[in-house]
């Protein structure tokens, strides 16, 4: 029993080391949330994604681009063609040159990529006190523990930093952001958006909806992938039983 326990301790040390907990110097707790798309049978909740798009559109999009997505991709959220056209038409893109050789502005159409809020990185920095709001297309894949981290970050603001913490000018204290100083002002406030489906817009609800929307944006193939996976694993499982039977039959005269 004691031996078992010491083995368990050694294994736990290995696990801790492998995940870099010691290396980080400080352990930041990121709680796991029970997302709808977790697990082998998980899928996105359309209503949640639609609310998430609303938060992105009304809040995040003023600073953060979503350059890998096209408006047509919103069909996966359950929107019809006309709704997508109407959504895209709210944005302007530069097109051209026309037959006069001039560039012109036109309303965005479903085949256009999401129009970024700033023309380039310099413009983004100039408008954001020198900070560069990252593109959000792959955010949940580009951070360790992606979705949980994004949610924890959005809900991890603290009005007053802990005593003795030197907060730089124009920075905000966030419990989970590395170094705890983040240039992004707390983006979500109670009733910050008025949900089209009437859901009560608590900070937690908005953060969860936004995270769900970003998880879909990063992995739009997730549902196809998982359902194909179930099918592939089932076929392989049957095939496995068959190959084992064949092998036994073939080897029966040898053993």
């Amino acid at each position, binding site marked *: 029993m004691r031996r078992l326990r010491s083995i368990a301790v050694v294994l736990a040390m*290995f696990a801790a*080391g*492998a995940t*870099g907990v*010691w*290396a980080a110097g400080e352990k930041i707790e990121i709680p796991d949330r029970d997302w709808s798309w977790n697990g*082998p049978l998980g899928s996105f909740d359309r209503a949640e994604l639609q609310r998430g798009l609303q938060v992105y559109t009304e809040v995040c999009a003023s600073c953060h681009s979503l350059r*890998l997505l096209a408006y047509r*991709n919103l069909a996966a959220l359950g929107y019809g063609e006309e709704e997508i056209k109407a959504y895209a038409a709210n944005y302007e893109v530069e097109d051209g040159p026309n037959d006069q050789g001039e560039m012109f502005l036109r309303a965005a159409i479903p085949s256009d990529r999401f129009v970024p809020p700033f023309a380039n990185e310099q413009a983004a920095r100039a408008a954001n006190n020198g900070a560069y709001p*990252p593109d959000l*297309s*792959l955010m949940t*894949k*580009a*951070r*360790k523990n*992606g979705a949980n981290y994004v949610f924890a970050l959005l809900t991890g603001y603290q009005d007053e930093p802990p005593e003795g913490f030197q907060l730089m000018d124009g920075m905000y204290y966030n419990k989970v952001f*590395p170094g705890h100083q983040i240039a992004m002002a707390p983006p979500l406030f109670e009733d910050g958006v008025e949900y089209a489906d009437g859901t009560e817009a608590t900070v937690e609800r908005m953060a969860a909806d936004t995270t769900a929307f970003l998880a879909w944006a*990063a992995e*739009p*193939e997730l549902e*196809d*992938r*998982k359902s*194909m*996976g*179930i099918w*592939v*694993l089932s076929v*392989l*499982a049957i*095939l*496995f039983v068959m*190959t*084992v039977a*064949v*092998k036994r039959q*073939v*080897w029966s005269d*040898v053993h």
Partner: protein
Amino acid sequence: MATKTEFKNPVVRWVDDRLPVFTYLDHEYNQFPMPRNLNYWWNFGALASVVLILMILTGIMLAMQYTPHVDYAFESVERIMRDVNYGWLLRYLHMNGASMFFIVVYIHMFRGLYYGSYHAPRELLWMLGVVIVLLMMATAFMGYVLPWGQMSFWGATVITNLFSAIPWVGDVIVTWLWGGFSVDNPTLNRFYALHYLLPFVIFAVVALHVIAVHITGSNNPKGIDVQVPRDTVTFHPYFTAKDSVGLVAFLLFFSAVVFFAPNVFGEPDNYIKANPLQTPPHIVPEWYFLPFYAILRAVPDNFIGGWVTGWMGVTFVSAKLAGVIAMFGSIAVLFLLPWLDRSKVRSARYRPVHNAFFWVFLVDCFVLGWVGANPAEGMFIWIGRVATAWYFVHFLIIIPLVSMIETPRPVPASISEPVLKEKA
């Protein structure tokens, strides 16, 4: 080999009389004698060839959609993930296929180490295998650069910079490798060209590896030679059936990763586009390089040659050069293994001391991998140094010494007989 197979089908016979491919297949895969006692660890060679073919096929299809340019590479990979039909499947198969390839090949190598498959007459077979691993490492490294994420860029920067450790000409060589003064578009282009080329070189060396094993025949868990026909069974149907079981089991594992945890082996940082102005907090290679990365970082300044030059207060062999030498040495030592191990008995089953050290060595490799995944600070420095030292001590001292002084247990007289004898 000498006898020609007679085929009934006239077309087959017509072709075979002119180019005996059917005779060859019949001899080498249908009637080919295999030791009857091979266990499931012998599946991994066949698995590796399946993965190689899968990698080449998915790779060619990805190449049709990928753009090797610093401004478009990252976006073109995401286009494959989002807009190309089943592009996500192709890419996840290819990306995780690399990890699978190393898992399968590492198991294949440890199987060879355990059962002494490198002993005479299989020295060349073993050495060709080491060449394949080296080529795989080069191919995997360059492939990892292609998506042009943060880890791609910084991994490429760190690894190519290793060559700057070469005395006098190092910097010139690095500039030549880069095709410029930093990792940039020319680097990406040549890595893409080489990443497309090398798999076919691997394929050719695999062919030699397979030809070599068909000359000597497979080793087996008892490590003794085939003596009578009763010791063997034909490749088909016995091992086609047994390999099929292993293949489907492997595909189950592979599919579970591809469909349900496709990024489990990857670094999140590689989903951030490469930015030459921003170094990620931890630069870590892919998991299959971690033990070698640990060896690279383990050697301190002036360790090699330190006892000669240290008193002069001059660094002749820097930590970097020594690390590079140690890292390449860790592979080079495998080439020497057939001559380092002087035992007449191949299989570790009958070599209790050698057997015990095999397991210690296996643990040592895992420890190196663990150290490689962590920053080189605190206790990891010392664990890394001890584990690196042990790696070389194992090959250069333990293996030769044990092989000379150990008294092996009696080896069975033949593959087919010993069952009764062992019990008596």
